[in-house]
């Protein structure tokens, strides 16, 4: 794990969004800090990525006003902003408890497939049935 330390991009309840920043800023922050991307370019990229998963309308909202699905989408995009991202989704059904199966998450992952290198989902053994054939 240590060799992938710079690629690890967690999506977890233990890694919340920054609540005093807009949604787009949470996503753009990674590029702005690590790649020194200019603010406007990072903002455009974040809004564009939100649009790809149908969440463009929440770009200027803040964490407390988001639904669970929206929050998950933003956390996923933030993780995908890491260079050569190795997305680690920790207990996705803890983030969206009312979700019946993994369908919504896999479709989101497929939509932004070009933004990350690999994705690993970790969950308890007894949650296996929610994952179906995955």
């Amino acid at each position, binding site marked *: 794990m240590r060799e992938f*330390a*710079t690629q690890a*991009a*967690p999506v977890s309840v*233990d*890694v*919340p*969004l*920054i*609540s*005093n920043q807009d949604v787009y800023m949470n996503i753009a*922050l*990674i590029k*702005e*800090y*690590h790649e*020194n*991307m*200019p*603010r406007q370019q*990072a903002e455009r990229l974040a809004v564009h990525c939100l649009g790809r998963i149908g969440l463009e309308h929440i770009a200027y909202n803040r964490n407390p006003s988001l639904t669970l699905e929206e929050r998950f989408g933003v956390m996923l995009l*933030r993780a995908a902003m*890491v260079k050569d991202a190795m997305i680690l989704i920790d207990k996705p059904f803890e983030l969206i408890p009312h979700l019946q199966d993994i369908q919504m998450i896999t479709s989101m992952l497929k939509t932004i497939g070009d933004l990350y290198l690999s994705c690993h989902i970790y969950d308890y053994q007894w949650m296996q049935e929610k994952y179906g054939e995955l």
Partner: protein
Amino acid sequence: MKAFWEKLGRFAILIFEDSADTIVFAVRVFVRIFQRKTYSSAMREVLVNQIYFTSIQILPVFIIVSVFFGSLLIGIVFTMLKDLGLTEFIGHVLMGLIVTELSPFLTVLLVTLRSASAINTEMAVMKVNRELKTLETFRIDIVDYLLAPRVLNGIISIVLLSSLFSIVLLISGILFAKLIFGMNINVYTNIVLNSTHFSDIVLMLFKCAIYGFFITLIPIRFGLRASHELTSIPIAVSRGMVNVFAAIVIIEVLSLLIKLY
């Protein structure tokens, strides 16, 4: 009696350790301010936002307070000087007391009440919400991203706002010099310029910078000391604010001592 000395000793050690921690923390942040890698695009964005919140949003209230309070202060001081027959000292009093001492002091009080308390709460809330852990997880240095821009903003804002306060005071001085002493603008300007010492201005700006550094650094430090429980927020904020006011008094006393010797 022995218990008393033990208690006193423990208290002294606590104060010493606390002060040493603050100095180490201050040095760490101070050094980062001068490192080029600190100034990432993300940090610059935070810095611009912080300057906007601290120096621009406060402007309407700040200008109203400085016009009313400054005019009142100038009026009282000029009237007293006239009553005491000390009219020839008007320039020295204006520059030595009002501009170099009271302007930074009143500015720092206003900014502390408005921004330092907000910074303290913001840091404590971020700690409680585990948002600082988020930054660490994504390998974002909190000194670079959160601390340095806020401290730098404190320095810039206090220097600028204090200068603005001084300008407002000097302008209202023109009016009161005319009303109280019947002095025209040219005479007033001459008196003020003759009483101005470059060293006083440098000392005032330096003091403003020190004020700005500590009134943002101390709230940040106490905010970061909050635990992961909501109940720790008010404790962190009240301790931070008490320490900020203690720091303001200490800086004021030290600057007076420096001026004295």
